[in-house]
């Protein structure tokens, strides 16, 4: 059976999540095609063609794919779905928005956010904020799957797949795209960062968050993350949020500063390789998952540590 991976990209380049999704496709086994739908997206298509394991890249290049709305992309995928046994997308906001629409139009179930592939029809996925792992088997002819990117190591480049232009589907014209406000940062993406410095309500306010955590993150070349409480309190924008319903991360080193460790936050970071927690409350749940816990005043400890790293 052939697998179709829906690429996430910004027309100029592939998002890293696509590399993890192709990796999951390789675990399933079979021929892998990648769909790149966008506007002036030839550069992204070339990157997709270089991914290991990919045999064909299908490109639909049309103005109405620029914003990659679920309505238009789903219509395109449905028009090109024949012959595919699996349709995969990353479990990012892009894939989560799109994949269920495809599944419903195909009248099949979706398997959300898989973390392991047991066989061509059986997958493992976390439920209840990662407090349980369900092994589920699909009886549908087509498996529509979203992939938790942290669970699959990105595939390398160096391949040379063919690139085929396919016809665009009609513009559904159901959605008007008004704009995006993207957070600009020189730091690595949360999903790809080796080190993440993350802050919670214990920092008190946004000024403290930036004043204390940015210098430490600079020393590590780290990404910055936050808890829901910190985002709700306006310390940082929504795209910093790590947790059950925010971003799921698994860096080499996760530094939790002033974070108590609610179930919903732990769900987003507990697969990190090494976890450090700094919190004044020795009973905070974060210490139950931390490899190294430091009980004390973060306002003293973080600057001390930052100075030592210089």
């Amino acid at each position: 059976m052939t697998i179709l991976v829906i690429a996430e990209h910004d027309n100029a380049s592939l998002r890293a999540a696509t590399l993890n999704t192709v990796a999951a496709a390789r675990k399933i086994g079979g021929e892998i095609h990648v769909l790149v739908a966008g506007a002036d997206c030839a550069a992204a298509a070339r990157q997709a063609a270089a991914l290991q394991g990919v045999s064909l890249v299908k490109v639909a290049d049309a103005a109405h794919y620029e914003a990659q709305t679920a309505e238009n992309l789903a219509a395109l995928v449905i028009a090109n779905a024949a012959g595919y046994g699996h349709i995969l997308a990353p479990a990012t906001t892009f894939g989560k928005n799109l994949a269920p629409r495809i599944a419903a139009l195909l009248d099949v179930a979706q398997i959300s956010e898989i973390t392991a592939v047991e066989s061509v029809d059986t997958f493992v996925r976390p439920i209840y904020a990662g407090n349980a792992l369900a092994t589920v088997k699909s009886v549908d002819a087509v498996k529509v799957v979203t992939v938790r990117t942290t669970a699959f190591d990105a595939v390398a480049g160096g391949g040379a797949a063919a690139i085929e232009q396919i016809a665009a589907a009609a513009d559904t014209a159901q959605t008007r795209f008004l704009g995006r406000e993207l957070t600009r940062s020189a730091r690595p993406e949360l999903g790809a960062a080796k080190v993440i410095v993350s802050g919670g309500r214990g920092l008190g306010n946004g000024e403290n968050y930036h004043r204390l955590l940015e210098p430490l993150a600079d020393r590590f070349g780290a990404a910055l993350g936050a808890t829901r409480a910190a985002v709700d309190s306006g310390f940082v924008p929504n795209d910093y949020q790590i947790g059950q319903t925010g971003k799921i991360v698994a860096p080499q080193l996760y530094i939790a500063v002033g974070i108590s460790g609610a179930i919903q936050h732990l769900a987003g970071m507990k697969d990190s390789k090494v976890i450090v927690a700094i919190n004044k409350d020795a009973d905070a749940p974060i210490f139950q998952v931390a490899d190294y816990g430091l009980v004390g005043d973060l306002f003293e400890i973080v600057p001390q540590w930052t100075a030592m790293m210089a």
Partner: protein
Amino acid sequence: MKILVPVKRVIDYNIKARVKADGSGVDLANVKMSINPFDEIAIEEAVRLKEAGIATEVLAVSCGIAACQETLRSAMAIGADRGILVETDAELQPLAVAKLLKALCDREQPQLVLCGKQAIDDDANQTGQMLAALAGWPQATFASKVVIADGEATVTREIDGGLETLRIGLPAVISADLRLNEPRYATLPNIMKAKKKPLDTVKPADLGVDVTPRLSTLKVSEPPKRGAGVKVADAAELMNKLRNEAKVI
């Protein structure tokens, strides 16, 4: 404008789910159940639209066992006008729920479905998008701001890189993210009033929907546990451990 809000009965968000010893699922016996937090946000938003004179009626719908009536009463205590329970003891997966909701949309003709973006039990994040697909409606998922005017919705969405704004025609499906609003506490008088609001019950068969699951759960297991870590005295010891023991710096 009528707004339909689906609400799900789930384990309370403060409670840590425990896997049953036989691996058949999660133990929900004697566990506190509540309205799914995202659905509560959706209800709050619908009620605010009614209070603002934009919506005329807020209809809450729940699919599942008889106890889901409590969930509907919670929604009505926030301000939903009436409830419909699609009652079944069968396991319901997102595609089946989307089909049930589609059948109810055909019957009730809402201009807007406002739902939670995901349920905190199965964490599927599918039903709203599936309903939009089945109805042929546009969708705006993960909404942090909704403005309805002139038969259109302008929705700010929380996406991985920041925020995105879409404008969609109605009818449509909008799914609520965490920061759309902060739901009010239901007051005692409103809880009492909710008990008297109309609550109808239908069966999946009445709606002509086959709810047979497409996915079978082979087993449910505990995730690997992290070993308890160590406490360090100060930043210097932390540095030393990270450098020489964990070898991450």
